[in-house]
């Protein structure tokens, strides 16, 4: 067998979308991967191998039968939910939104319970930010707050933020200060010049005090020894000094902020802090998006509906209300009577109450691999794997769009095609 080498392949695990992978393909299988982290390697080696069986109500079925069943379930539902998309391409996502619109469905994506609060914070205060290449080329101060990229975005440090050698950071790590704020020591904090181990849930308080220090507001009730988030004020002054005196600072924030007490308010205050710093120098913030294309979901939702997540089409036009139209709340309350799940595994990621809500209603799932949801969903449609056997667009955590290529053949269709087939059938049912 000959081995084909594909260069500049995009990794589809996390939101850092490293696009310099080298994949070795033999007999239509990835046999080796270079320039990749451990998780990306597992994804490349296994992402197209463990296809679920095409099933309708537990029985093996043809694709045509599965499309018919999916369309029938969705057409008959009064209040369906269309949800997911974090591991599929924007092109499929666009059709997914159209399908939700036709069905007058609820529509949500995985950012809903992940970086969604950061997206809501942006609605309140905006977001001064930059692309990852700016961090690589210019950043002499890098802060990770509630993020542990050494375990979640493994090449982030080396490609973009910490060791990366850029135009004005030719020495890489030596040209930068690295600050980590987290609730416990992590592999990421081990590398830090300054590590702030803070009390869980104190992020809002800390960001508020930091803003006061940056803006030179009086803090009459605090002394240098006063603890803020478990850390003496004098140490926070050190961080403020770095923020004001750096040439170009980037604060990367993780779900340590968005999923902790305060949620969107934590991010809002952090963004205000970063904005304040721009009186003196350039400091930006960037969310450490998890799933590879979850930012793409926000982008597509926004350009088609105006809203990034938590949408309802039940009046025929898009409405937005987090908490009301968020996937977990809708499932917990039993607001939906059928669900179309695309490219995500709710049974692995949602609280058990929401999963139980899903199990009570007819559920259709499109997944390229066996998941905890494919085990029991009513209609299971195996699909090609985005970035291995399906092409299309992903949006990186900094909004840079990159096109995935198809390097393997797959006997199953891509999400895009499946959604189009279901849409055609739904439209047909609607018109007859």
């Amino acid at each position, binding site marked *: 067998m000959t081995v084909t080498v594909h260069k500049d392949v995009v990794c589809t695990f996390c939101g850092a979308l490293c696009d310099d992978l080298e994949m070795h393909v033999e007999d239509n299988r990835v046999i080796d991967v270079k320039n990749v982290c451990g998780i990306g390697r597992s994804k490349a080696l296994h992402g197209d191998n463990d296809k679920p069986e095409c099933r309708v109500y537990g029985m093996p079925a043809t694709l045509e039968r599965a499309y018919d069943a999916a369309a029938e379930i969705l057409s008959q539902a009064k209040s369906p939910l269309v949800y997911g998309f974090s591991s599929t391409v924007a092109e499929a996502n666009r059709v997914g939104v159209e399908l939700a619109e036709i069905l007058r469905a609820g529509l949500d994506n995985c950012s809903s319970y992940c970086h969604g609060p950061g997206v809501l914070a942006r609605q309140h205060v905006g977001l001064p930010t930059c692309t990852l290449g700016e961090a690589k080329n210019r950043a002499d101060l890098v802060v990770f707050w509630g993020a542990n990229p050494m375990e979640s975005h493994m090449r982030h440090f080396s490609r973009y933020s910490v060791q990366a050698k850029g135009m004005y950071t030719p020495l890489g790590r030596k040209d930068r200060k690295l600050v980590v704020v987290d609730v416990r*020591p992590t592999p990421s904090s081990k590398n830090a010049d300054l590590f702030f181990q803070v009390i869980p849930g104190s992020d809002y308080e800390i960001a508020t005090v930091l803003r006061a220090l940056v803006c030179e507001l009086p803090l009459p009730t605090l002394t240098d020894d006063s603890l803020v988030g478990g850390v003496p004020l004098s140490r926070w002054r050190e961080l403020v000094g770095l923020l004001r005196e750096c040439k170009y600072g980037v604060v990367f924030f993780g779900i340590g902020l968005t999923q902790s007490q305060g949620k969107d308010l934590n991010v809002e205050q952090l963004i205000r802090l970063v904005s304040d710093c721009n009186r003196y120098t350039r400091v930006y913030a960037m969310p450490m998006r998890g799933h590879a294309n979850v930012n793409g979901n926000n982008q597509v939702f926004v350009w088609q509906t105006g809203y990034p997540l938590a949408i309802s089409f039940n009046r025929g036009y898009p409405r937005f209300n987090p908490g009301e139209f*968020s996937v977990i*709340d809708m499932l917990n309350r039993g607001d939906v009577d059928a669900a179309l799940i695309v490219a995500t*595994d709710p049974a692995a990621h949602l609280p058990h*109450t929401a999963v139980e809500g899903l199990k009570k209603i007819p559920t259709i799932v499109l997944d390229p691999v066996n998941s905890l949801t494919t085990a029991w969903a009513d209609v299971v449609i195996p699909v090609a794997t985005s970035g291995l056997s399906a092409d299309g667009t992903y949006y990186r955590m900094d909004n840079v769009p990159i096109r995935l290529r198809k390097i393997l053949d797959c006997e199953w269709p891509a999400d895009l095609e499946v959604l189009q087939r279901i849409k055609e059938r739904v439209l047909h049912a609607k018109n007859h």
Partner: protein
Amino acid sequence: MAAKQGFLITVRTAKQGNAMERGKYCADYVAETATLTLSPRDYQELALKEGQRARVRSDSGQVLVTCRSAEGPDGVFFLPLGPTANELIGEQTYGTGVPSYKGFTVEIEAAQE
């Protein structure tokens, strides 16, 4: 000893991410997502016997976990995202769409299996 109260935070770990991409039915994924990390002092106080698991209870449910100790604050327990943690997470999102994945009260004790 009596059950110990603490604060549970779900996290990502390299092992969990890696195992997840090899398949959610692989033994490593199941094991890693049911492995709780706590401070050496908390670990000691649990007084687990060799191979003994711990039971974790929240208002929402209860699970059995394997425990390991690592440097970190006392009274805060870390559990990788996954089906085990999902049993413990409450349904309230307080209007944000996000339940308390990070930071809710649990009780932990050595399990009598």
